[in-house]
């Protein structure tokens, strides 16, 4: 139990001290997660909206698939991306293995289904109300998806935050494609895993608290934005 106390102390110290290595790791974590969540949202939201709105054979199966992909094991995603980017792989020439870019790719693969599945649910609920009115206005497919995404934006924030949560907490994929290389691809979660394997549990916990603090700051900022959105979204 003394580990908890020690961990809190350490976390506080780490946050206050402005330790340079830590700062480097935090910044890289934020960059990678921001990149992955942005990409995943750019892909997942329209995809989810299309799944919510379009009617075609096999749609139900696709919905099940996307829902299932929320359960993609990170290690498997890491392996697949690794095999693609490896020098022995088809994309080896890009020389992206063990770079932050590779980590963003892996995270995007993990997060996209989450954003897409949750978006589908939100948009489907909203479309139940809007559908006939938009039909009546002869709104085209593309514009319809844009409208639904725009009008549901306050609710979609939660979908994006869920994606961010997965991304920021994830270690299995990024450690495989990033390699947890000091000063190059070490992020918060891989650092935590490393300290755990060194038996430095208090330090690992402290890093965990720091990570959680970051998550809270990000969520708080997004939450503030969302409130402002709701206010003039006329929801």
């Amino acid at each position: 139990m003394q580990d908890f106390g020690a961990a809190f102390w350490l976390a506080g110290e780490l946050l206050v001290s402005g330790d340079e290595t830590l700062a480097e790791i935090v910044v890289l974590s934020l960059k990678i997660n921001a990149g992955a969540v942005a990409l995943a949202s750019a892909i997942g939201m329209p995809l989810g909206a299309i799944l919510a709105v379009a009617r075609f054979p096999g749609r139900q199966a696709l919905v099940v698939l996307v829902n299932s992909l929320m359960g993609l094991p990170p290690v498997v995603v890491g392996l697949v991306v690794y095999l693609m980017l490896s020098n022995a792989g088809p994309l080896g020439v890009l020389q992206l293995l063990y770079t932050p870019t590779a980590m963003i790719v892996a995270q995007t693969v993990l997060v996209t289904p989450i954003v897409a599945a949750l978006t589908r649910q939100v948009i489907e609920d909203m479309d139940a109300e809007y559908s006939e009115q938009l039909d009546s206005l002869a709104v085209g497919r593309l514009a319809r998806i844009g409208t639904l995404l725009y009008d549901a934006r306050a609710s979609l924030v939660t979908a994006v935050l869920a994606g961010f949560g997965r991304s920021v907490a994830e270690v299995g994929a990024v450690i495989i494609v990033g390699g947890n290389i000091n000063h190059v691809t070490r992020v918060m979660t891989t650092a935590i895993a490393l300290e755990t394997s060194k038996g430095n549990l208090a330090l690992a916990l402290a890093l965990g608290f720091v990570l959680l603090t970051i998550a809270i700051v990000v969520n708080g900022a997004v939450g503030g934005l969302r409130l402002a959105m709701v206010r003039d979204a006329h929801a």
Partner: protein
Amino acid sequence: ADRYIVVQSTTSTQNSGLLDYLLPIFTAKTGIEVRVVAVGTGQAIKNAANGDGDVLLVHAKAAEEKFVAEGFGVKRFDLMYNDFVIVGPPADPAGVEGSTDVVAALQKIAETSAPFASRADDSGTHKAEMKLWKEAGIDPTAASGGWYRETGSGMGQTLNTGIGMGAYVLTDRATWVAFGNKGDYGIAVEGDARLFNQYGVILVNKDKLANVKADLGQAFVDWLISKEGQDAIAGFEVEGQQLFFPNAKGE
């Protein structure tokens, strides 16, 4: 930072802090950055065979020689050694504390069905452990799930688990000395010649894997087995204790 190489290595060299100590010395001298990917031995060898590393630094001699024989590696060099130890709880349920006969100790553990946590991950350490069980004439996997606990994890995680459940654990000394979660554990068995743990270093073969940075990798291997590199290894200490013993035979 264009001049860098990737080293695929086992976790013990990283977790013990050796590489953190060694690499800045090398980089300061040559300007070559060394990026370490520390994973399980099997994974390290597989990654290197895929061409995703320039240098391989592991401790599983048979697998290393196979790697070279298949043409993935240029040549294997002995680099250094340390030794394995068996750590255990103070209660010492198998009564092996202070023993220097590892085979006898394992037999006692099996007889008393004292919990033993094995990495069971085909790592160098695990392979060494299995060899010792064989010498003891015991097939511990028959008791898997009973007193023999196969954790399927890296060294650090297996230590965390083993200590958590009061089991004996075979570990390399370097990882143990640097380990932060020892609890009330201590070394129970050490000093047997059969616990010798040899590390090797191999430059990945550019002829087979075109992307290998052969020049830079060669420079690193050369430095490691040079007198300067070997001295640096010898100079690495944790808590006043030397953890690795250089034994490169040189070119």
